């Protein structure tokens, strides 16, 4: 074998703390290395051309590139090899950037370590075999998890492109957080007016199947061929019959049930239709608050229902859907602001969250669009907004900026003035973050045209003055003084965190998530809607807090990724799969027993039991290889001999 080694400078990223020339020279001493050089940017066009030329000139059969992480450029260089006529799998990378040059400045130690990493790459490559991927069919259906604005956008784009779409929504209506908003910044257009028609399109589109009040139970399979179990939670209303007339809601005597759509501002009914524009506009019963279901009394709804849709016997139902791609668009939830004892921790009725305030402003909300204090129903004249509640605050474990709160607070200040012209608004802020198109202009309008008084500083305490008002005491860091504002109503700009149960969903999807439950994108810059699991994409705030335009943009981007994936005739499976040496296999079946994918079958060969790997099912984890005592199952490209050679290379002398 003739191996060529290319040691990348990555500009100064590597060369700054690694002597790449010395690494290249040292590589020439490694077994079967016949060519080695340093190169400015291995991944650039001239860099790749240099590799191709060297392959041709030096008749190389394998290439090691020492540069950045293989998680970034392994596919790039495999294509380079392919262009040079080599099998793309005769390639290894040594990660001398993320794992060497970027984590220390000791040039001697770095150079030495880089050479060591090249050595193990060479030892592994010496034992590589040319591999050819297998092709398999794609199921051209896509699952969209979450029916907020990002999911709606993704679903409509896919459906318009002719794909069959399955949408699963946890609540009884789609629309997500956007449906709860009164107006949107920076245009102050009506949220439900722009979202409503898109929700209707979801309901009417022939390519879209909507499962509302449903959750993803489990996901198996792989890109191109996922099998998804969807749990349709019992609504106790036969939605095929329900016309959404609302008669049942009127007659429901259980009037202390929560109304999650209205952010618990006012009590709701046990049987409920979230809001007039709900899609689907169907009633559902909250079982734990239903008198019939808890005490076997009442049953009013069944009596009044004109279409006989009530069914108290209903059970959860599991439906299996087969899809080829998945878009997660599960959005966000509000941070639990009650941990802020100093803001009343949920004890003062006139301290509300920003989303509760939206419902108050909304004509479809419980107050019919009239701003009223929850305590006494009076119109507030002085409203104080407190920003960064659960954002940029390490003390509550939320160090990040939620991004959109500055903007919606400005919007709410403007709307307050619109609703109550003689009102005053005060905004306590840390910094104003308004970097979007027309955003800064918008916050300035709130201050300059609508007279919102912005006070830079954190609020230390909110307490009732005993005469019906709240005292908001905080710092004004620009004036260097303490300020106290008496408020009729306090609105907390509560930050975003990942939607409840996001980690559990991530585990089902086998994607990564961060400490706050936000899903990890494939690459922070270059793969913003991909994940590290092929066929699973992200859209909207589930990846990190973002506003409506960004969520919609990601919805379209994720759809484009799925459409691109499905535009291929067939998909290629990763050929780095397990392989059984039937001579060595004693048929004990331990591999088949532990394989997480059922990719190993026990068969018979000349009367002897033998294991057999189903290549397109195998995902290449290598658990079988670690389980087989006699080493009869080997994972291609991660064989025992390769790993042993790497270990030995690292432990010389």
């Amino acid at each position: 074998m003739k191996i060529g080694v290319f040691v990348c400078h990555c500009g100064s990223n590597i060369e700054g703390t690694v002597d790449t020339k010395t690494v290249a020279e040292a590589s020439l001493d490694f077994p079967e290395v016949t060519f080695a050089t340093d190169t400015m940017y291995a991944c650039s066009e001239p860099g790749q051309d240099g590799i191709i030329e060297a392959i041709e000139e030096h008749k190389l059969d394998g290439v090691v590139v020492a540069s950045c992480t293989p998680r970034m450029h392994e596919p790039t260089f495999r294509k380079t090899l392919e262009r040079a006529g080599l099998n793309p799998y005769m390639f290894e990378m040594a990660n001398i950037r993320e794992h060497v040059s970027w984590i220390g400045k000791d040039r001697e130690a770095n150079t030495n370590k880089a050479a060591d990493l090249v050595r193990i790459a060479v030892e592994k490559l010496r034992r590589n075999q040319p591999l050819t991927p297998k092709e398999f069919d794609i199921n051209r259906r896509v699952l969209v998890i979450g029916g907020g604005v990002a999911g709606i956008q993704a679903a409509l784009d896919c459906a318009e492109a002719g794909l069959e779409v399955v949408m699963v929504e946890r609540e009884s209506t789609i629309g997500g957080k956007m449906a709860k908003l009164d107006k949107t910044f920076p245009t102050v257009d009506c949220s439900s007016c722009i979202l409503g028609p898109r929700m209707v399109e979801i309901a009417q589109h022939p390519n879209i199947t909507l499962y509302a009040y449903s959750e993803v139970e489990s996901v198996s399979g792989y890109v191109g061929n996922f099998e998804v179990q969807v749990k349709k939670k019992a609504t106790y209303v036969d939605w095929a019959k329900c016309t959404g007339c609302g008669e049942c809601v009127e007659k429901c005597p259980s009037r202390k049930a929560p109304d999650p759509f209205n952010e618990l501002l006012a009590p709701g009914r046990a049987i409920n239709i979230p809001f007039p524009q709900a899609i689907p506009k169907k009633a559902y019963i909250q079982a734990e608050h239903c008198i019939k279901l808890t005490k076997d009394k009442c049953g009013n709804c069944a009596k009044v229902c004109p279409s006989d849709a009530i069914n108290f016997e209903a059970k959860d139902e599991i439906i299996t859907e087969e899809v080829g791609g998945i878009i997660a668009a599960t959005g966000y939830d509000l941070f639990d602001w009650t941990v802020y004892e100093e803001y009343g921790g949920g004890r003062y009725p006139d301290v509300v969250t920003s989303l509760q305030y939206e419902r108050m402003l909304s004509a479809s909300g419980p107050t019919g669009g009239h701003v009223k204090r929850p305590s006494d129903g009076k119109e507030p004249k002085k409203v104080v907004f407190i920003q960064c509640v659960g954002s940029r605050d390490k003390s509550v474990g939320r160090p990040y900026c939620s991004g959109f709160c500055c903007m919606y607070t400005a919007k709410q200040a403007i709307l307050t003035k619109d609703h109550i012209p003689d009102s005053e608004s005060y905004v306590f802020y840390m910094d104003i973050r308004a970097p979007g198109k027309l955003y800064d202009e918008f916050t300035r309008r709130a201050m300059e045209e609508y007279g919102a008084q912005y006070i830079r500083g954190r609020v230390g305490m909110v307490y009732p003055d005993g005469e019906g008002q709240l005292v908001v005491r905080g710092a004004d860091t620009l004036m260097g003084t303490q300020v106290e504002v008496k408020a009729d109503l306090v609105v907390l700009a509560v930050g975003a965190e990942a939607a409840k149960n996001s980690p559990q969903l991530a585990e089902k999807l086998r994607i990564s998530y961060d400490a706050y439950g936000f899903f990890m994108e494939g690459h922070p810059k270059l793969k913003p809607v991909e994940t590290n699991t092929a066929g699973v994409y992200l859209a909207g705030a589930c990846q990190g807090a973002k506003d409506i335009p960004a969520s919609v943009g990601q919805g379209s981007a994720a759809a484009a990724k799925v459409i691109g994936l499905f535009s291929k005739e067939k998909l290629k499976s990763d050929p780095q799969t397990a392989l059984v040496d039937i001579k060595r296999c004693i048929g004990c079946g331990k591999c088949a027993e532990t394989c997480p994918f059922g990719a190993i079958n026990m068969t018979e060969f000349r009367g002897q039991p033998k294991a057999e790997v189903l290549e397109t099912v195998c995902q290449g984890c290598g658990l079988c290889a670690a389980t087989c005592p006699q080493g009869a199952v080997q994972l291609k490209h991660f064989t025992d001999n390769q790993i042993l050679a790497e270990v030995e290379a690292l432990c010389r002398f």
Partner: protein
Amino acid sequence: MLEQLKDTIKKALPELDFVIGWGMGFDALHATPLFMYEPEDVDKLVWGPLNVHNLATYLPALKGRKVGIVVKGCDSRSVAELLQENLINREDVVIFGAPCRGTVSLTKIRKVIGNTGLIEDVNYADGTLTVKAEGASHEMALKDIRADKCGYCRFPNAVLSDHFVGEKRAPQVEEDTFEDLAEFESQPFEERRDFWMKEMDRCIRCYACRNACPLCVCRDHCVAQSRDPHWLSQQDGVRDKFMFQIIHATHLAGRCTTCGECERACPVDIPVLLFKRKFTKAIKDTFDYDAGLDPEATPPLLAFKANEDNIKEKEW
């Protein structure tokens, strides 16, 4: 009891290809595996503290044939383990069990009587073993020359059998306290390492430990002698011999019943059972599992729990 055992075997013999037991070997001190095809062969059967071999070792190679096997308690656990791993079929094996009073360690006997020539006679009664060799008579208390494994035996009766002859005996101990291990590990790490360096240096790499092991079922495909995968070189150095013992023990983790055949078979008396004892204790402590008791059980290393009961991961 022996006669009763013989009768039982004779009755079952017509249905079987043969029955494996023990007969007298080249002298009265050494028993040897006995393959009984005919009723006359059964008359050669012996039972007692000299029946040191674990005959279950033969079974995997006989898979598919109908055979009988005579087992001590410890041997029966190996049979259970082989059944669990589908290496033998339950319906093909007829198990004859009898209560075991413990076996001897021939190494320990050799230490007492020395390297004698011809053994003239051996008698055991009332906890004493008398060996006559070269005119001299050596009396030894059975407990002094007992195999170590019998000292912590919890299963003197077969854990599974088709025919059990004789009265079941109470176990030697209720719990295995692993005192042998604790004693060894009371030494500093460096001394343990040095100990093994010297012991492994003595190893002649004969693989008797592996070949005697009833659960070393890879047979011709043992990784010790393959190039793909190439875990070990054929060099006669300490490293490869030590590594082999680690491989052997690791492959047995969760499977080993500590029958002690590896150590018994070792011609240079290296205490290789200690490695397996360590794994056995770790498995017991972590998963409360004993290998070779239940052919239907899933061994702990081929299973998992999302929340492990006894694994505390390191907090950094």
